[in-house]
């Protein structure tokens, strides 16, 4: 009998900490993101469990969400929580 694969819970990290080139999933917005900004980010297509690709972190966080390239200040990216796909390497 094949043992069940271990289910790893993914850690939540701030988007600002993710190295360029990595793909992550949006886990949620922190309380520091106010309602207006949260609405704005949602309008850009940032929604829970959507995949994002980090393109760069300096001078600002630049991500690709679907086909939308977005630049976010670290003050915002620090409060956007993301998860690496469970079981994914450091890649």
């Amino acid at each position, binding site marked *: 009998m094949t043992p069940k694969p271990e289910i790893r819970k993914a850690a939540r990290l701030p988007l600002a900490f993710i190295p360029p080139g990595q793909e992550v999933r949006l886990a949620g917005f922190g309380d520091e993101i106010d*309602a*207006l*900004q*949260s*609405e*704005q*980010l*949602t*309008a*850009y*297509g940032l*929604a829970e469990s*959507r995949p994002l690709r980090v*393109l*760069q972190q*300096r*001078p*600002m966080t*630049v991500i690709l969400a*679907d*086909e*939308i*390239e*977005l*630049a*976010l*200040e670290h*003050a*915002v990216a620090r409060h956007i929580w993301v998860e690496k796909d469970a079981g994914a390497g450091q890649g």
Partner: protein
Amino acid sequence: MTAITAPNSAILLVGHPNVGKSVLFHRLTGAYVNVSNYPGTTVEVTRASARFDREAVLLDTPGVLSLPSRSDDERATMRALLNEETRCLVQVGDAKNLRRTLSLTALLAELDVPMVLALNMHDEATARGVIVDIPALAEELGIPVLATVATGGDGLGELTGSLGHARRPGALLHYDADSEADIARVGEAIGRLAPHPHLAARGLAILYLGGDAEVAAWLEEKAGDRFPEIKALRQAASHRTANRVAAVLARERSEAADALAASVIQRAPRSSPLLAQRIGQYVVHPLWGIPILLGVLYLVYQFVGVFGATTLVGLLEEDLFEGILNPAFTDFVTVAVDVPWIAEMLVGPYGLWTMGMTYALALILPIVTTFFIAFGVLEDSGYLPRLSVIANRLFALIGLNGRAVLPMVLGLGCVTMATLTTRILHSPRERLITVFLLALAIPCSAQLGVVLGMLGSLSFTAVLIWTLAMVGVLMLAGFLASKLIPGRRIPLVTELPPMRLPIAGNVVKKTAGRLKWYLIEVIPLFLIGTFLMFALDKLGVLPAIIEAGEPLVTGWLGLPKEASAAFVMGFLRRDFGATGLFAMADALNPIQAVVGMITITLFIPCFASLLMMVKERGMKTALAMVVIIVPFAFFVGGLFNLLLHAVW
């Protein structure tokens, strides 16, 4: 779902920013509106008759990031939705970003107005491997859906053909039970107390619950003293959701859009990013971004400052006007006009031809032409929004974010238009600071060209000193303004549109449109200014002003006393004043040239931009800015006079 055809009513183009609404508008009406590759090009509603149906009026609305409306440009779109007798909505969406497009569709659908969805930039979607099953999407939405490439004219025939088949779309979602109950309660109250002639009460209820200020104002006006009844229902909904009703509704629309998009999109695997994406990433790269920016600035300087302001001005002013036209016209007037003062008014030192037309056509026209071409190329390339990323840290020092770089750069084209564009900024504080800095330290294209032409012919050092002075003043004034004006800085979140190869035809059209504006606005003002100078001279007032201004102009600024005339001209347009200094360049040493240009650049902008400041920020604020700016310009000019004499 029934097809609607109501004659003599409006067809509204609505959609997200930078999805090609204005290109489509131009294609469908023939009317040209400014088209660029950055969000926020359109900040006001434009209307024109449709080519395909002379009874139809098309409206190009500012792009909305989302609805309910928040920013000034979104509010302008909301006002159009509320107040126009709408035949149908044409939602223009970005084919490669279908999820986002459908989030807006989910809200527009609730308004119960006949709709057509144009999925524009279909070519870019295909290049990225995004394939949309259009018939399936049309079936799901219950409205005509078409693939278009507005820049190439693809799909426009089908689009105009589909307008007669516009349908009221079905709802994309049912909100959660609590939200649906809130919507039903508010919708019922709106239907009873403030029914809209063509927008559904349910749609207005969703917008009102989401906090749309324009809808609230409309309802308040319509419902009158019964409005508190509607307001109380919203307060109850806000209380239930801990003030997160807008976010809850937006999230649920986004989820519905996600689900629908996933069912109609196929993605072809892509091995590597497109060349345009790679270039876009290099432009904002931490290492390569600044060298690329310097390279771009150098190319613009070579094209505008060297080719336009030196080569073309030399050909036009020295060879054509001074060499051929002016002597010929002077000879003609001397012979044909018997009255000496009329002859002098035409061809004297302050002659309408020898000064007014020569300044406008020989000195400024070649400079603004080259500038508008260079600017048009940059606008269409997608480079300007990327500047906001590079400039963000610098702008943080003056209480702004990088988004303010757009109006600032647009100000280098025309401060008047840039003042209007400050509507893309999110807070009144940001707009106030930016309008002030535009009025103070951002030279328009004509003035910039004169500065580059005059100082560039002296030395690169002169250009550098002027540039550092302007940046220094901009930063210092911005820093002080950000400390004095209450409010907090908003961190930057901005979309970076794809880098695109500019289309020559669009750059030519934009340049021609801007030159037309220049010729219509500037030449009359130059002629009026010249006539005023002539009249002041003849009445003996100008010499008196020159004498009176001597302590300031000669003593403090260290300029020849005749330079006073240039500052008098500068009150009408600062580029007119700058041209006055340019014309007396031979009489100025390098320090005087730099000090003169610094002072006149910091002067109040042209009369048209002053009117725009009044329109955007009110008379009191505009006058306060003028009262600050004029003495400040002379103060800084004098400081540089002292400083440069000490070190240069």
